[in-house]
């Protein structure tokens, strides 16, 4: 009550003195200030995440606003393309010296609009595809905005289609680029070269030493190892979504879908159709389409209308014939449909042929053999056709699908030339993912009998059972092929015995001390291992008679430490068990082969071990080992181990034959 009274006294004391107008004025003022403060606060603290993303950083401008550059009529023109250019003569690799990680750095010149003395523009400023292409390069790891550290320069002058530009003026525009220097280390992209009437197979713009990534090179214009042959991008790829169709027989054996073919070629194709009937389909432009139907997406045979490019999926082989230009966008459509292209274009350099193996995805037929195409194709076995269909689709997905794919493949090819030792292998370029995963490339692929002279290195892993260890050493040293003995001393708390206490043996003996007691230490690739064959044994084994040997390879030791998926190594070290199973998994996984069991031995005698001491004896041990197998199989993703029913024995093993004539009579005697 009292408070309200107070309020009543105080409140009216302030407010009534102001006019109602003022009151509203103040309240509005306050709320504006408050809102403003809140908004600013939000702006200050909220948008940080947006700011750091790329969008915020990239210029948002209109193409109409790009700076205009006037080219005087007498500004210099580069020399014509130098046909003798090769990487070692026309390319300056020293500019790539700043690039770390075996990756070239690419600089893109800023976009400008070039006009001549009369203000008439030299070309379309930029096409949609070239914009995409430059964006793809800019988003890739190759990009740098530091012109001084770049190895490759890409002008933003769009020369994808020669028909949309003025040749002389475009060349002048190139020549005045800041780092042009006769075009050294400059890369131009062109998909539609030449112009009527004679259609040159390479860009006519004089470009001196610049590299050309061109669609439609012929053997006459292509500078092997210098230029890059690229596909002619098909804009349909972006518009049409053709789901992948598995390989196998299709309705038509051979299909031709191109329009505007030379009449001679069309006659030849139609003759094929007459001869082979239903299995050959020759399509042409539609003449009687109703208004509003996109003629690009339709093809006709007589009065039958087909959807393009869907119809390509109905054919096993699709003809890709030379037009006025050698490179045809239809090649891309055909690959997308998983149809095997039959390329009939003499002297055409197929896209990316420097790295792609087109024999696996296409059939190239000389023009003069066009009438024999059908019989040539029929001689290809079905299995090979299916592989080609799969390969065709894979090429499209990897290298044709988008402008980005084309741009990155081009840069990768140039990158591979500059860093050949870090280049992508044939298999990586050409094998579809299914093959890459399914196949095993054995690291020891060369058939080889280990040289007798070299012998093997024995590795004994030990903790502290010195007496047993010495017995093992003495026994192993009797083996004639032994060339070195390596003792891995796995006990950090105890020093190995004095030198004088070790048994005297005829081969070098070396003790390696480890930093931690790990079973994985057995498979470390010690520098001391000089032979290729390695015998790994435990110290608790009174060795086999000296005839009995078990070989692994030093290489697998290397793999065990460096290539073994991380989980497994830790698991082994934690459980003090199963390192041998892990090794088996690894060997099976990298070689794709089963291990070989040698000699009939199943148990190793171990006089010193008690049930607790010898790891491999009790029941829980076996349970744990089954667990290991499950765990390893899940880490490797598959079960690489293979089951075999054989074992290697000496030729005359347990044969009814005089013992003294046998080579290894002691096997199995213990």
């Amino acid at each position, binding site marked *: 009550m009292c408070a309200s009274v107070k309020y009543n006294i105080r409140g009216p004391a302030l407010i009534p003195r102001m006019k109602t107008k003022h009151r509203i004025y103040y309240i509005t003022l306050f709320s504006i200030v408050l809102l403003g403060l809140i908004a600013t606060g939000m702006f200050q603290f909220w948008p940080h995440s947006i700011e750091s993303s790329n969008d915020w*950083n990239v210029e948002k401008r209109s193409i109409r606003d790009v700076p205009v550059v006037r080219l005087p009529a007498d500004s210099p023109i580069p020399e014509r393309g130098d046909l003798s250019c090769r990487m070692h003569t026309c390319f300056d690799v020293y500019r790539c010296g700043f690039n770390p990680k075996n990756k070239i750095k690419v600089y893109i010149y800023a976009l400008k609009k070039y006009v001549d003395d009369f203000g008439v523009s030299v070309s379309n400023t930029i096409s949609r595809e070239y914009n995409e292409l430059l964006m793809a390069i800019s988003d890739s790891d190759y990009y740098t905005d530091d012109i001084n550290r770049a190895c490759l320069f890409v002008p933003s002058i769009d020369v994808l*289609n020669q028909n949309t530009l003025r040749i002389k003026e475009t060349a002048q525009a190139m020549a005045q680029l800041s780092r042009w220097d006769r075009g050294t280390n400059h890369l131009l992209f062109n998909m539609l070269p030449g112009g009527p009437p004679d*259609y040159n197979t390479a860009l006519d713009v004089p470009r001196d030493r610049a590299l050309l990534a061109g669609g439609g090179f012929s053997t006459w214009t292509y500078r092997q190892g210098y230029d890059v042959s690229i596909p002619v991008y098909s804009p349909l790829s972006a518009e049409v979504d053709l789901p992948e169709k598995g390989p196998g027989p299709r309705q038509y054996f051979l299909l031709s879908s191109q329009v505007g073919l030379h009449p001679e070629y069309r006659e030849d194709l139609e003759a094929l159709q007459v001869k082979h009937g239903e299995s050959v389909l020759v399509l042409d432009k539609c003449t009687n389409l109703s208004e509003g139907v996109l003629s690009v997406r339709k093809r006709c045979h007589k009065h039958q209308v087909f959807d393009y490019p869907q119809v390509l999926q109905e054919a096993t082989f699709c003809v890709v014939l030379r037009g006025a230009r050698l490179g045809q966008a239809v090649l891309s459509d055909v690959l997308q449909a998983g149809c095997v292209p039959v390329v009939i274009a003499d002297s055409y350099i197929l896209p990316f042929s420097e790295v792609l193996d087109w024999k696996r995805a296409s059939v190239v037929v000389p023009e003069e053999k066009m009438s024999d195409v059908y019989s040539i194709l029929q001689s290809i076995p079905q299995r090979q056709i299916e592989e080609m269909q799969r390969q065709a689709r894979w090429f499209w997905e990897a290298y044709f699908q988008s402008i980005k794919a084309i741009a990155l493949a081009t840069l990768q090819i140039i990158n591979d030339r500059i860093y050949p*030792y870090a280049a992508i292998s044939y298999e990586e370029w050409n094998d579809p993912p299914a093959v890459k995963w399914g196949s095993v490339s054995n*690291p020891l692929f060369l058939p080889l009998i280990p040289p007798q002279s070299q012998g093997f290195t024995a590795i004994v892993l030990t903790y502290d059972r010195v007496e047993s260890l010495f017995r093992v050493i003495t026994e192993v040293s009797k083996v004639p092929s032994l060339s070195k003995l390596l003792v891995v001393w796995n006990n950090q708390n105890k020093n190995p015995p004095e030198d004088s206490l070790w048994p005297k043996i005829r081969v070098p003996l070396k003790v390696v001390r480890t930093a931690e007691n790990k079973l994985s230490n057995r498979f470390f690739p010690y520098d001391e291992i000089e032979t290729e064959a390695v015998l790994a044994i435990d110290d608790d084994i009174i060795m086999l008679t000296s005839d009995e040997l078990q070989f692994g390879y030093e290489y697998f030791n290397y793999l065990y430490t460096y290539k073994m998926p991380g989980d497994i190594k830790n698991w082994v070290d934690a459980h003090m068990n199963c390192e041998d199973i892990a090794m088996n998994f690894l060997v099976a996984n990298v070689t794709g082969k089963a291990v070989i069991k040698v000699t009939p031995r199943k148990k190793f005698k171990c006089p010193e071990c008690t049930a607790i001491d010898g790891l491999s004896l009790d029941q829980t041990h076996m349970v744990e080992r089954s667990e290991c197998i499950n765990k390893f199989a899940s880490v490797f993703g598959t079960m690489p181990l293979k089951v075999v029913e*054989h074992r*290697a024995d000496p030729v005359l093993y347990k044969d009814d034959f005089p013992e003294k004539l046998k080579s290894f009579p002691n096997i199995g005697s213990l």
Partner: protein
Amino acid sequence: MQSWRRRKSLWLALSASWLLLVLLGGFSLLRLALPPRPRPGASQGWPRWLDAELLQSFSQPGELPEDAVSPPQAPHGGSCNWESCFDTSKCRGDGLKVFVYPAVGTISETHRRILASIEGSRFYTFSPAGACLLLLLSLDAQTGECSSMPLQWNRGRNHLVLRLHPAPCPRTFQLGQAMVAEASPTVDSFRPGFDVALPFLPEAHPLRGGAPGQLRQHSPQPGVALLALEEERGGWRTADTGSSACPWDGRCEQDPGPGQTQRQETLPNATFCLISGHRPEAASRFLQALQVLAALQEMSPARVLALRQQTQFLWDAYFSSVEKVIHTTLEVIQDRIFGTSAHPSLLWNSPPGALLALSTFSTSPQDFPFYYLQQGSRPEGRFSALIWVGPPGQPPLKLIQAVAGSQHCAQILVLWSNERPLPSRWPETAVPLTVIDGHRKVSDRFYPYSTIRTDAILSLDARSSLSTSEVDFAFLVWQSFPERMVGFLTSSHFWDEAHGGWGYTAERTNEFSMVLTTAAFYHRYYHTLFTHSLPKALRTLADEAPTCVDVLMNFIVAAVTKLPPIKAPGGPGPRPKPPAPAPDCINQIAAAFGHMPLLSSRLRLDPVLFKDPVSVQRKKYRSLEKP
């Protein structure tokens, strides 16, 4: 008074907040309104154009396609490519047929032997009219015998000029459209896809066979020099890993002087050798500039191992003898003619190489016994039994029953190869039985019959005796080693000091190098290899001395796999001793191969519990242990 003070503080608060608002808000408003200045150092990519959607495509529909014009012609009169200068119409039929111009006048011994080697090869044809390729050997200038223009020259069309050694004769005629195969061609004269580049061969290169690679240890060794540089006057200098490489600023001026350098005349023991073509003095500069060392140091041991093995494979498959170099050249040209049925890249680049993996057999790597791993496939689980019935010609009823009882048997083929008439009745079997009437020739046994539908063949002689479980187990072993022969009876070769030649023994010893094909599993590809790749002389030899055929087959398989065959337990117990082959047979074959490919093995692959002291109930192949 109080109200005034209150109002004052109110105004103060208001103006302060206004100030704050203007400062903060204005700043952010300013940032919104103006295009952001790129911060120095931040990467600024290609701009996202506001009107990118409105950009036009580079090719407008309707612009393409154009009217086709006549094919472009070669702009340079002299230059050639495959399509324009080689006429493939003469090359129909089975593979490349080559005619070699006979030598005129006196020729060197090497020349004569090379000619003989080509004439004995599968490419040779004796008529120039039937040949698809005409080969002109341009060998040695020392003898002064420069070849003159040959008769069928025809501007060099379909000709191959083979220059094994440099310093060729002065050109007496224009090469024109002839292909040139020579060592170190220059970039200017070499026509890619048309000419063939050869390795540079020393004068004393072996004609045939050739020594295998010299690399003794494939895995990288610690402590061996990383790089050896070729120097002037043929010396070598080794650069070690410890040497500091200069920064890659283009032209490195100071001499980094690779760590320890030592000069030596012989090929050094180093992991990599740097060979710099014509200018050895450029090598050290090259080393400085390109930081070769740094790049090599980064290379993982696994990659070094792979590269080292590949060098050995390439040397052995294509370089080690003059004959291999010539055959490789012809194979390259044949691949161009074949087009789609040429060797896939895998066959060229992995063992045993394109000379031994015939593309006429198949172009699909899965059909060969060598590439199952790379293809991620396995040999199929069935085999075909091919039973050869020679004289005296008793139908092998018992054997047929035993083989047909195997769960892996897909079909039985009986090759009737004797004078007696074919029996009209054959036993009923669970699998199809086909009888082939042979030509009474021993080499028929290894003919690639189209009726053989499985990868594995069990080759049998009518007189051999096998049990079903022996067959089953041996087949399982073959599946693990599909490129090798798995047999039951063995024999070995040995060097006979007394006679200065190879000897043959079928005695039971601790080693063996051959399995008898009277009972052996192998891949059907070896039939194709036997029939189509062997020189005719060798097949004739086998027909004339039938017991030689075993040796020959073992030679082929060993030459391809570089591994010994495998012995499985079993085979006839008290067996009749197989007739020993003619004593000279093994020497004649070894001479034709140019080397001795056979390797000895001390292994026999037994079932896992074979003859172990465990209960018989646990053993899968019990009957194998019966004496």
